[in-house]
């Protein structure tokens, strides 16, 4: 049986918002679920997030966005990821995201959106089942 590889996750805070309690809680939760987690810290540009994702060769990018900026930021990120040919990296978004924007984000290629009611176990289970596919 092949050895189970540790899933690597980049938790990132794009935009100018500095409220990162949620990003830290998710980082800790995924760590406790056995993943390797890198947290970028606040105020990251999309370019910096992509650079970090490449450098750290992560399987998953998790964006934490509370400031209503999710549509433009995700659009930019997904465009640039396509250009960098990061096709296999799973991108997730968590935060204050109105329900009506979820389908829009998914059309852009965001694998899943975790709104405030989501639990840590939902997030880690989603990652585990999606990455091992």
């Amino acid at each position: 049986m092949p050895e189970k590889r540790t899933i690597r996750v980049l938790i990132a805070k794009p935009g100018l918002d500095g409220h990162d309690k949620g990003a830290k809680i998710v980082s800790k939760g995924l760590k406790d679920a056995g993943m390797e987690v890198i947290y970028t810290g606040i105020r990251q540009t999309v370019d910096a997030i992509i650079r970090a994702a490449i450098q750290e060769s992560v399987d998953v990018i998790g964006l934490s966005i509370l400031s209503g900026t999710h549509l433009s930021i995700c659009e930019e990120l997904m465009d640039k990821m396509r250009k960098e040919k990061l096709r296999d990296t799973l991108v997730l978004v968590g935060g204050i995201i109105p329900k009506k924007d979820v389908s829009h984000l998914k059309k852009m290629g965001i694998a899943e959106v975790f709104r405030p009611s989501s639990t840590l176990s939902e997030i880690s289970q989603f990652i585990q089942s999606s990455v091992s596919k």
Partner: protein
Amino acid sequence: MAMADEPGKKSDKKGKRPEGKSDLRETNTGVKVKLFYDPTDVPPFNDEASLGNPGQFPYTRGIYPSMYRGRLWTMRQYAGFSTSENTNSRFKFLLNQGQTGLSLALDLPTQLGLDSDDPLAKDDVGKLGVAIDTLRDMEEMFEGIPLDKISTSFTINSTASILLAMYVATAEKQGVNPSDLRGTIQNDIIKEYIARGTYIFPPEPSIRLIGDTIEYCVKQIPSFNSVSVSGTHICECGATPTQGIAYPFLTGIAYIQEVLKRGYGIDDVASLLSFHLIAGGVQFNFFQDIAKLRAARRLWAKMMKERFHSRSEKSMQLKFSTGGMGGGMTEQQPLNNIARISFYALAAALAGSQSMNLPCFDEAYAIPTDEAIRTSLRIQQIIGYEIGVPDVVDPLGGSYYIEALTDSFEKEIVVEMERIESLGGILRCVEDGTIQRQLANQAYEVQKKLESGALIKVGVNRFRIDEGDRELEVFEVDPQTLSKQVSRLKQVKADRDQTKVQMMLKALKNAAIEKTNLMPYILDAVRAYATVGEMVNTLKEVYGEAQHFSVF
């Protein structure tokens, strides 16, 4: 230890025994409480020393003799979005609805010293608040709102000195004497490093700049609160109720000391500080939040008198607003949040708060809608005008439970303050990440308890329903905001005297190098329509930028 002859301690046949007075239960916030309280739980308390009458030292019962009979708390709801024109009409709407003060939300670029045309600002212009680039924006925002008739609270920190200067310059243009201005700038950088993230410069020059604004207010606008030290944000970020008082107190003392070393006395400074404390939020316990705020008031009075030798009542009177608390709002069954907000507001009123801005029931969905903001204002008005709360000052004073809790909170706050001081003080513990790490761990533990059901949250882990696809109406920011604001900025730049702007920025830079009080220089630059970004970049050349404080 249980005593055999205590009736309440006997086991009944099923192995369960009725609980006795001293059986402890841990509350949702981890405080151990008895079944009931009686006179033996309250030390034979000398009323004069521990309570006093309202308006008397140590102000446990309230800072004013007649409290809400004299004047209700200031009712504000946090508002501001898009451009200054849009915000102007929302302000007029809120004042029309009976709001008595304004609470201004500024967008993140303004809070971080980025102009609306800065590439780093593009996603955030006008999103979480109004975009202010130059004095022109401030003038338009308060068009038709006489500044001597209202009080305005600015949620602004790193760029507080600039926004204050713009408010003063707007008053001048309206023909209002700046000394008649009332309001508050948040101006609390330490909690930005801990919890909120809108820091620009390193700690030392940042705190000096706060000292400059306090000094300016002491001399020019004595009824303006030059700092609102915040416990709210750090509580939302994981601090316990005790830490939520201890850390802002340590922070407030750090700012006071910055001004004392400039040769001022404690009574010149202390009354210009106000606090922004939490009643509500993730770790809300109704009675404890009331007791905690009473304890805070008593402790502050004692510290000012005993440690700082204050002789002025105003310095000893802890003024605080209560607000924030969006973290307690749930996505599930969002109308339940209206009940939560009501309890937060009632706790704040029973604790003698000077001002409230409440969260809104749709916080977990988006930026609050007009309806949600109005509902939160109505909650304040129902408590203030409809149900008899303001008739009697400190109605819970003398309750064995409340007084026992007040005593124990006071002791615990002192212990936590001493712990941080023994580790090198608040600033040291922020710079080395001790506090941020601790709050992140505590927040994570709370989240795990919410997920395991150890902490009950109605509608979330108990009494759930199928939420279906229900969507609340959400607030939408005008999609044209960025382009509108960028062209406004362009126009201001075209209209102003460029040479004068450069001259003022150069003077500002020299003053920063000389470490003289920057306020007069910022005012001059503001009057010449220099942008927030130009002033901040000028200061960055001298101060450099802060490291990242967000550790976990």
